[in-house]
């Protein structure tokens, strides 16, 4: 199966573990069934894959686990439609299809020796989580690491156990927040929207890279804040997540102007995004 030149053919993977992050967000830990694929599969933080639920089709998710962790991959998805809901019905031991990795990635080596600020909203933590763990696994190579993560409500925060781990490990500054009205009585984070909370947290822009992932509206309000904090467009990275199907520059679905997000992206600097036609 792996020897074929059929670019649409997925590798088979077994669901090894399931974590329910929120009522509608689930993490799957996947292990490739073919031993060779398991050994040879490698990817870079920021890349995505096409995951299939047989009988329903394919869905695009980033690879949410870190490339530094071998032997398995993880994806984390929200149930919103046909394919995601069918993926959600699968159980440990069931088979899914995975093709990829596709797209470009965060140039992590270029970040060595710098501080990092991760800014994520809602379900958009997974694409940054892969970078966060990748960098934490290489902790010595970076200066300060700040994570600003927010969701609509406490219940919508994903990776709760990992947020706790990041909070407690001492070498990461985690600022977690929920929108006004979204906090329960025991919430130990901040109340407010991500851009506002980021401005209060005021991470230094000096020798620092900012990585932003979230809904378009959050990104729109976050960029001016980063600018005020002193970040330049070349030091801000984000991912564009246009609807995709083929993932390999054929189906014509994901373009922003002449950019194929699936091939040229999904990772772009703020400078690249600003140069694009405003159609995302």
């Amino acid at each position, binding site marked *: 199966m792996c020897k074929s030149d059929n670019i649409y053919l997925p590798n088979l993977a077994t669901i090894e573990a399931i974590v329910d992050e929120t009522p509608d967000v689930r993490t799957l830990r996947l292990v490739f069934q073919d031993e060779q694929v398991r050994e040879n599969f490698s990817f870079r933080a920021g890349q995505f894959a096409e995951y299939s639920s047989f009988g329903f089709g394919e869905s695009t998710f980033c690879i949410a686990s870190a490339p530094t962790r071998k032997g398995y991959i993880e994806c984390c998805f929200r149930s919103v439609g046909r394919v995601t809901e069918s993926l959600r019905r699968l159980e440990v031991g069931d088979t899914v299809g995975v093709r990829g990795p596709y797209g470009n990635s965060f140039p992590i080596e270029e970040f060595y020796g710098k501080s990092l600020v991760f800014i994520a909203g809602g379900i958009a933590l997974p694409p940054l989580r892969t970078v966060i763990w990748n960098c934490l696994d290489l902790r010595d190579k970076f200066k300060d690491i700040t994570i600003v993560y927010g969701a609509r409500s406490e219940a919508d925060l994903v990776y709760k156990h990992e947020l706790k781990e990041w909070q407690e490990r001492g070498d990461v500054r985690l600022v977690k927040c929920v929108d006004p009205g979204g906090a329960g009585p025991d919430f130990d984070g901040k109340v407010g929207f991500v851009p506002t909370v980021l401005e209060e947290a005021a991470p230094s822009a000096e020798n620092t890279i900012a990585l932003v992932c979230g809904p378009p509206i959050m990104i729109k309000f976050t960029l001016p804040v980063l600018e005020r904090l002193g970040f330049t467009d070349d030091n801000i990275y984000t991912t564009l997540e*246009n609807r995709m199907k083929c993932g390999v520059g054929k189906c*014509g*679905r994901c373009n922003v*102007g002449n950019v194929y997000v699936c091939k040229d992206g999904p990772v772009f600097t703020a400078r690249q995004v600003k140069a694009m036609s405003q159609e995302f």
Partner: protein
Amino acid sequence: MPQIITEQNLRNLIDLLVKEAKLVVGPKLSGSVVLYEPLTAGSDLTLDALPRRSSKELFFPICEDILSYKRENGAMKVNDVDRSKFPETVLIGAPPCDAGSPAILDAVMSWDYKDEFYLERRRKSTIVGIACTKGDDACFCRAVGLAPDAEAGSDLFLTPLKDGSYACKAVTEKGQALVAAHKNLFAEGAGAEPVAFVDQAVEKLDLVKIKKWLEDHFEDPLWEKIADICVGCGACAFICPACHCFDINDEGSTDDGVRRKHWDACGFAKFTNHASGHNPRDVQNKRYRNRIMHKFKYYDDKFGKTLCTGCGRCIRACPVGIDIAEILETINTKHD
């Protein structure tokens, strides 16, 4: 030495190719319309009308299996499609606006990742193009760089002559091979004078200038003016020899079925709809703008080609009368 083939020998060639177990496809009267259909005999070929749909589907079918899956003894198995079974194909009688389209689509199908479904069909196909003598008001191939006698994309090119025979030009090795394999059907000589081609009213467009205007006018009142009325039916894309957007879906149960690639269109309202509800192209004129931009700017940026052959099919098919040639002429006259 130029060669000619009589109409009878052209039909005999089809008979022979069918006997050789090749798939021969050409314009054929199907009910009341002419469509590209498999020819079972030379007498099936009709050359007096432009087929209603383009010949693109020979290489890029409306719907095709890209894999099958089956659960056996509890374990899922995925099976590839045997592309070696794709038939050797001869497309015969395609005018330049159809014969030219694979030459355009090859670029997207073979950059970086290779779509072997399309490419294997291309490898196994020979295109016998024919100079066009039946254009109408909607045709504008000249405007986009083709012409009624353009050979681009054809392996063997036929030019109708006044005595009813055809002048033949082998454009590629595939064309030469086809002639060589059926030498006795072809005669050497220049033949009679060519039949006059359609004189298209449309002026040659300045595609470079149009592209520049598109580059500078992503936002422009023109888009609302011309495209608000588009109903997003997708007819223009489905009938177009150059459109190539597709979707991927499964058909079958969770235990046994096929995965299929099938045509899609950027004019459809949900084409770019995110699961969050956010839609980057949220109104119809933005979707139509993408259609024009893709054909006359993006594809050229990426592959150095215009994604339109000027066949005029979208103009004839559009239920609300949107005329792409008219839009291009409008843009062509803009100078800012």
